[in-house]
Every structure is written in structure tokens, then in C-alpha cells.
């Protein structure tokens, strides 16, 4: 027997086919190289998980295999960046934003080096692989590091747009990206600007500010609520830092209920909700904010879709939390 019989059988190296959203990572990098940027990419033994094997196949001389050494990868990337070469280094967000947090602070951000950090499979997207592989703290750890830009694209096309935009952004960047199975929000292509949210409308009853995979779910929830006569808007806060203060304040000003809501697959402490709360309190807006996400606990083990339903981070769940909040 030389091969498995069923066409449905798959092995690890065929994983990319199951994560089409991550094609945009390699596509974006290939596009940068083609445009003449001196870009290289590296990964800590996860090139089939993050799809960088496609970049490595296109430019074998521009791919660095770091092996399972996340801290070395980050510090070495900072060393590479001192020479004018722009390194993109990728691993699971659970490791990048936590295990290599100090290297990111010391060598990348304090060092002021334009390294591009790609934390993928973020939030609870790794499902039953376990809580060790969930990243519900990375916005919090990364956001408190000075001079570090944080981008949380909601889908592949937005990721690709952000990679394109990074060519004109000379600061260090942490990209918080999903698993590549995220539903598409922006069919075809889209644009991205640092410090700018993608506003899908302000709601008079409620505006939901989301990031990453929860944007699609928030749009679903908003559509269902609008169908019942509610005025509900959604802001895709893909630029977590710098955050789009104008979008937040715009939503606050349009609210008749004086209520806003944030949604993230992250601890409700330290993440997007906290960032939005800071803006609202800075400006004294008198808004009641519902910060929805993982409520300061370790997430359970389950298939991802079951987890999103359990934590009310899918469309139905967000709608339920939002309605309850509006009634309260």
C-alpha cells in the first residue's frame, strides 16, 4: 500500500488547503519582493501551518528556517533589520506574543527595528489543540510595549492589504492573525491604513467594535438585529495600535442609548475592549461599554466552532449578548 485511498485523507503538509486565508500572507510577501522590497521571511518550524512554505518555494533564498526557537528568531530578526533588510517572522501567537514578549520589547520595539511579527492562529482558533495554543493575552502584552504597532486583520484580503501598507510604515509591527479559515469579510480586495478602522456603519442603538475573526460574526449579529428594527453599526478595528480614536468617538456621538460594545477573541482585560475604554474615559464620553470576549479565564478545549458558540463569539452569541446589554 503506497498511498491512502480516500481523496479526503490528508497529512500535515497538505494543511494549507484547509487554511486558504493564510495564502494571503505569502501572497502579500511575494508581492513586496516583486515590488523591489528587500523582504525576507522566517518561521519557527511552522511554515506549513502559516503557509510560508509558499513564500519559501517562491524565494528559497529569502526564507529562514529558525527551527523551534522563537526567542532566537525574534532577536535575530531585529539584527537582520539593522541592515535595512525587512524580516517577517511568524509563529503561533500564543508563543510569539508571550514566549518571545521580552525579545519583542527589548530588541524589536525598544531597538526601533522595523521587524514584522506575525502571530497566527490567534485567540481560540486552535480549538482542541488546547489552551496552551490559545492566545487570549497577546493584544494585552503587545499593546503595553511602546512603539509597537498592532494590526488585527479580520480576513485574508485585509491581511494582504495591511502587508502592502507596511511597505510605507517604518515602525515595528505585530500582526495578529487568524487560522486562515476565517470567513471572508472583504471579497476581492480591500484597503488598509495604519490608525484607521474600517467603519461598517454607526448604530443609534449600538455600535459593535470588533477585530479579527469576530468582525464577520459582529456583522452577522448586526444584520440580524437590523432586520428586527434595531439601528446597529459595526467597526472593524483592524488597527489596534494606533487605534482609530475618531471612529470610536464617532460611534459614541451617534449612540442614542449611550452604549457601545466591543468583541474580541481575547481576554476582556487588556485587549481591544480595554483600548476602547481608555479612549472613552480619556474623552469623558459617559458611555456604558460592554466588553465582550473571554472573561479572564482559560478557554476550554473543543473544536473552534464549538468554542466560538460556547463563548458567544459567533453571530448568534454576539447578538444575544448585545440584546441583553441593550435591555440592561
Amino acid at each position, binding site marked *: 500500500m503506497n498511498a491512502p485511498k480516500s481523496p479526503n485523507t490528508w497529512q500535515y503538509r497538505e494543511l494549507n488547503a484547509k487554511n486558504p486565508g493564510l495564502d494571503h500572507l505569502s501572497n502579500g510577501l511575494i508581492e513586496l519582493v516583486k515590488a523591489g522590497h*528587500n523582504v*525576507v521571511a522566517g518561521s519557527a518550524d511552522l511554515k506549513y501551518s502559516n503557509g510560508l512554505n509558499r513564500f519559501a518555494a517562491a524565494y528559497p*533564498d*529569502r526564507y*529562514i528556517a*529558525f*527551527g523551534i*526557537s522563537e*526567542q*532566537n528568531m*525574534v*532577536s*535575530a*530578526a*531585529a*539584527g*537582520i*533589520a*539593522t*541592515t*535595512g*533588510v525587512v*524580516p517577517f517572522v511568524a509563529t503561533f501567537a500564543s508563543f510569539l506574543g508571550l514566549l518571545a514578549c*521580552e*525579545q519583542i520589547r*527589548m*530588541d524589536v520595539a*525598544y*531597538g*526601533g527595528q522595523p521587524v514584522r511579527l506575525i502571530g497566527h492562529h490567534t485567540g481560540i482558533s486552535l480549538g482542541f489543540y488546547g489552551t496552551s495554543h490559545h492566545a487570549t493575552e497577546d493584544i494585552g502584552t503587545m499593546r503595553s510595549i511602546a512603539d509597537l504597532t498592532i494590526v488585527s486583520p479580520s480576513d485574508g484580503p485585509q491581511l494582504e492589504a495591511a502587508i502592502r501598507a507596511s511597505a510605507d510604515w517604518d515602525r515595528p509591527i505585530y500582526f495578529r492573525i487568524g487560522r486562515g479559515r476565517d470567513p471572508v469579510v472583504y471579497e476581492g480586495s480591500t484597503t488598509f491604513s495604519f490608525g484607521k478602522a474600517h467603519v461598517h456603519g454607526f448604530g443609534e442603538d449600538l455600535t459593535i467594535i470588533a477585530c479579527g475573526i469576530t468582525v464577520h460574526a459582529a456583522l452577522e449579529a448586526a444584520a440580524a438585529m437590523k432586520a428586527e428594527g434595531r439601528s446597529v453599526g459595526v467597526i472593524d478595528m483592524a488597527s489596534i495600535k494606533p487605534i482609530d480614536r475618531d471612529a470610536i468617538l464617532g460611534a459614541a456621538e451617534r449612540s442614542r442609548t449611550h452604549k457601545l460594545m466591543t468583541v474580541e477573541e481575547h481576554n476582556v482585560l487588556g485587549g481591544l475592549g480595554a483600548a476602547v475604554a481608555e479612549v472613552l474615559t480619556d474623552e469623558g464620553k459617559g458611555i456604558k461599554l460592554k466588553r465582550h470576549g473571554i472573561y479572564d479565564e482559560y478557554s476550554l478545549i473543543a473544536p473552534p466552532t464549538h468554542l466560538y458558540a460556547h463563548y458567544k463569539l459567533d453571530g448568534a452569541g454576539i447578538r444575544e449578548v448585545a440584546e441583553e446589554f441593550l435591555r440592561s
Partner: protein
Amino acid sequence: MTSPSAAPAAINSYKPDQNTVDWLRERAQFIRLETIRLIDIAKTGHYTSVFSAAEVFSALYYDVMKLRRGEPGWAERDRFTIGKGHAAVGLFPIFADLGFFPKGWLDDYTRLGSPLGDHPDMRKVPGVDFSSGSIGHALSNAIGMTVAQRWTGKDYTVFCMMGDGEMQEGQVWEAAIFAAQNGLGKLIGIVDRNGFQLDGRVDDVMAIEPLDEKWRAFGWEVHTVDGHDISAVTELLRRLRADDTRKQPALVISKTIKGKGVSYMETEPGWHLGWLDPSDAQEAIAEIKSKVI
């Protein structure tokens, strides 16, 4: 003396002449004296960490490294990263002397607004090739600079000095296996084997021997040298830098004495951090000036 010994002819061709040796020895003394002066401004500092490394600093910056006076950002320059960043007080006088920044900066060492602190900041201090202060990162930073030559086409050598206590950091060994795997012949690591860390003798706190065998097992070409023999240090580093055939990174174990130059500092590990009252500073200066190291 160095080991393993190469062919005598090859060694001799890199041997510095007496004038050079005298000059480098004088520069090492300058490094020690300036360190005492700057730490007096700060009122606390790491004398002994500089004193163990003074000959290596002198050999690198005044002889071995490819540098241009007054051009700290020259793209083709050799690079130097340092894991024991607390020895930066011994590097700043060199950088000022090489015209990387105005000498007047030294006079405000550690004062509010000064670019010069106990640990070096690459964004503030021209000449610092990479910031330091968190032990264990420097070799990774150095391998990044070395591997980047593939994409920049620039030709240079990268030196990385690590403390011997730094060998206890796991990231060092992540970097070590990467450097060997990628055949980084343009990378030269130096371990300042002065035998002490904050809490005591390195070999009592967390033993690291056999250090040469460990690095050799990780795929590095390993050499051991008396780190205070300025002639031997210079000769070895010149030879390693000139060797274009080496396909593996090189490591120099520089056997040194922490506090070398001031007798009582050489025997008391507490001198890792301290301050000399002006009267004691004068005596230390006199002792340093009276000795040929």
C-alpha cells in the same frame, strides 16, 4: 597563547609588532581609567566587568575590526554586539575616541537626558551596533546581522561578546545551533570567562564547564586565549577574522580575571557593582598606571 594551535607560520603572520602591542596596551589602560572617571560621575557602576574585557575591547576597536573613524553607521563596518551590556561604560570612551560622538557626552554620563547609561542604547548612542541589557539576546542579534549579508551583499565580520554567566541563558544555545546550521563563518563569539556572576562564582552558581566541548559539540570552532595577553588576543582575533575558508562560526573563550588591574577587585566578587571614593579612586588609578598588563 592560543589553542588549538594552527601552523606556526600562519600564527606569526598575524602577530602584532611591538609598537602595536604597546599602543593597544595603552588603550586598554585608557579604557580602565575612563571607566573609573565615568563611574565616579554616576556614583555606581560595573568596574570589574570592564576590567576583565579591556584587552579584548582594545584589540577589537583599535586593531581587529574594520571601522571608519567618525562613521559609526558605515554599512560595510564590522559589527559588535555585547550580552554583558553593563560593560558599556568601557565602550563609550572608545566610541568617543573614534569620533562616533562628541567626547563631551562622556562628562554627563548617566545624568538626566544623557544618551549614555549603564546599558547601551543603539537608538541614542552612535557606535552601539545593538542595544543591550537583557542577557542572552546578543548572539541572536549578531546572527541576524551576519545572515543579512546574504541580502545586502555587504561584507563584514560580526563579533559578539558574552559573559560566562550568560552561558546559562537558553537563548544563547538556540542561537548557537542556528549559527552552525547556517555556516556563519563571519561570526565570531567571545566569552569573557572571568569566572563570576552576581551571586558568586559561575561554577558554584550554575556550572558551565566543559565550555569548549559544549561549543564544539554545537558545531563551532573553539579557541581559548589568555584574555589579558593583548598580543595573543590580537593575533588570534586577526587570524580568525582573516580566515575566509571557515564555514563554521568561531568561539573564543577569553580567560580573564574579573577586576583585572586593581588588586583588591580581583579577589572580591562583590566588586561586580560598586563605587570608589575619590581617595580610593586615586589609588586605583595609580595602580593601573603602574602596571603593565
